[in-house]
């Protein structure tokens, strides 16, 4: 096979799922079911290791946002004590991302291939596909699981619906949910690979990561590396939204230029002010930098951005970036699980400051206050939610410095009242954090005085 795209999206039909037979016609049988690939999946104790080695050579990294090396994670689970279990993470709490939904809806067998392979490699006999409530109607997955029973692959496949929420797809939140608790992050260690679902070593892997795994198992690491760049080989799914002719999910090779992606999507339908990369808890990049911008972590690093979960959201120049950021910031604050004081208080304080700046009531020193709150909040939660949310605030302060100071001086602009360009999901529940650790009063005046949970 030559280095062409699409890879994952080969044969995709957005309106219906590929049946098992269609899937096998497109991609061919899994190595374990054919003859050529027995080396990868034979019952020899080191066989799982062979697949993990192949994944390592391919340089596959997780596609849920954190970009963690897939082989390291698999090896950690494989070498932990006890019978392992695999969790397929397709919760996709990121409102701007559609790729995992598309995979499960249209290409469920590619994801299930990956789940079965990963399970075999780490010595698991069970894999649970997790989707959020919004996607609970994905009958394609259940049908696909049913179709595979006849294959007798030795891996029990299950389906689980996880409550909606930005943090409910976080690894430890999924583990806690599958153990009968709330879908909220927990303090780690123990990490899921040490003690996860039912106390077993647990491989939590994004749906797209597993789809790539299924391709690597078929075609090998060499093939995988024919696309992409040395520091980030392979292809990736991205969700492009905003003023383009055809927004949607695209498969690109790492390092492809944003301009070429926009071109593939039929070009811009309006002038763009900035692009939000990675997710709502992502990084703003000025539209002036778009020309020549390469979509890989290496090329995005100078902007403090990364490919993350593949969200590429364009903001038109007609919108008010201050109002949009203030809305996103408030939403991210409300999406805090409410468990960690610095996250709840810090994100709400940042969101409040943004709202005040947008309304022109922030007063002097808002920028300094914002910078201080960012430092105060970053890295202090049990999960990475606060880190992502402050990234949005920090990059907005840089990219929209001019607009922010205009708003601070003159108040709301003409574009502030426009409908939001970045939609927020209907399931958002702003009441959730009111019963949590928010400290009453404003930052500073409440110093040290805990009033806490009765707020």
């Amino acid at each position, binding site marked *: 096979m030559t280095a062409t795209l699409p890879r994952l999206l080969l044969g995709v039909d957005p309106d219906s799922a590929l049946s098992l037979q269609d899937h096998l016609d497109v991609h061919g049988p899994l190595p374990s079911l054919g003859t050529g690939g027995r080396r990868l999946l034979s019952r020899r104790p080191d066989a799982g290791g062979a697949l993990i080695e192949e994944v390592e050579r391919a340089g596959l990294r997780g596609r849920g946002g954190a970009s963690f090396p897939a082989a390291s994670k698999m090896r950690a689970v494989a070498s932990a004590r006890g019978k392992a279990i695999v969790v397929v993470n397709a919760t996709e709490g990121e409102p701007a991302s559609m790729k995992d939904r598309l995979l499960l809806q249209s290409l469920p067998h590619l994801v299930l291939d990956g789940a079965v392979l990963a399970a075999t490699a780490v010595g698991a006999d069970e894999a649970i596909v997790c989707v959020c409530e919004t996607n609970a109607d994905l009958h394609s997955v259940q049908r696909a699981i049913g179709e595979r029973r006849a294959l007798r692959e030795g891996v029990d496949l299950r389906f689980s619906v996880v409550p909606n929420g930005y943090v409910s797809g976080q690894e430890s939140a999924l583990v806690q949910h599958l153990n009968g608790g709330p879908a909220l*992050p*927990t*303090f780690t*260690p*123990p990490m899921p690979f040490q003690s996860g679902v039912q106390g077993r070593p647990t491989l939590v892997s994004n749906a797209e990561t597993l789809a790539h795994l299924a391709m690597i198992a078929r075609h090998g690491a060499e093939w995988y590396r024919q696309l992409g760049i040395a520091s980030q080989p392979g292809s990736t799914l991205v969700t492009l939204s905003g003023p383009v002719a055809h927004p949607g999910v695209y498969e690109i090779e790492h390092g492809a230029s944003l301009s070429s992606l926009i071109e593939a999507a039929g070009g811009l339908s309006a002038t763009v002010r900035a692009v939000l990369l990675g997710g709502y808890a992502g990084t703003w990049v000025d539209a002036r930098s778009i020309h020549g911008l390469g979509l890989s972590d290496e090329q995005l690093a100078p902007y403090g951005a990364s490919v993350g979960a593949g969200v590429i959201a364009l903001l038109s120049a007609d919108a008010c970036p201050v109002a949009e950021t203030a809305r996103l910031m408030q939403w991210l604050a409300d999406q805090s699980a409410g*468990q*960690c*004081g*610095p*996250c709840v*208080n*810090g994100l709400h*304080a940042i969101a409040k400051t943004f709202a005040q700046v947008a309304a022109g009531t922030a007063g002097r020193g808002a920028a300094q206050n914002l910078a201080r709150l960012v430092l*105060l909040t970053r890295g*202090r*939660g*049990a999960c990475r939610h606060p880190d992502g949310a402050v990234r949005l605030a920090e990059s907005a302060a840089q990219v929209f410095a001019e607009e922010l100071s205009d708003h601070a001086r003159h108040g709301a602009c003409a574009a502030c009242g426009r409908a939001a360009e970045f939609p927020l999901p209907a399931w958002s529940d702003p009441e959730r954090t009111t019963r*949590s*650790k928010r*400290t009453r009063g404003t*930052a*500073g005046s*409440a*110093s*040290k*005085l*805990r009033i*806490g*949970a*009765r707020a």
Partner: protein
Amino acid sequence: MSQRVVVNPIACTAHGMCAELLPERITLDDWGYPIVDGRPLSADLLEHARRAAEVCPTFALLLQSDGSPVRASARASQPAQPTVRNVRRRPEPVVRRQTRLDPRR
């Protein structure tokens, strides 16, 4: 074997005792939650760190050695994560009784 202090931010409900007992490594933020300096503890600070972990009403302050947090005291040597869910149902903390522990006041 070097040890450092870490805080379980889920268990922590900002009593602030740790900052009173280990001001060398712990300060409080705007909302009363500890900002922890995670550098290894010197021998003279270790005893203060143990005491700070012992008196934490929610067992949120932990001493960590070689990458894995361990509870500092016999009192807290219960199964892992015993406090996380109870904490939020706890009655409201007594208002800053710990101030008398501060020798500076």
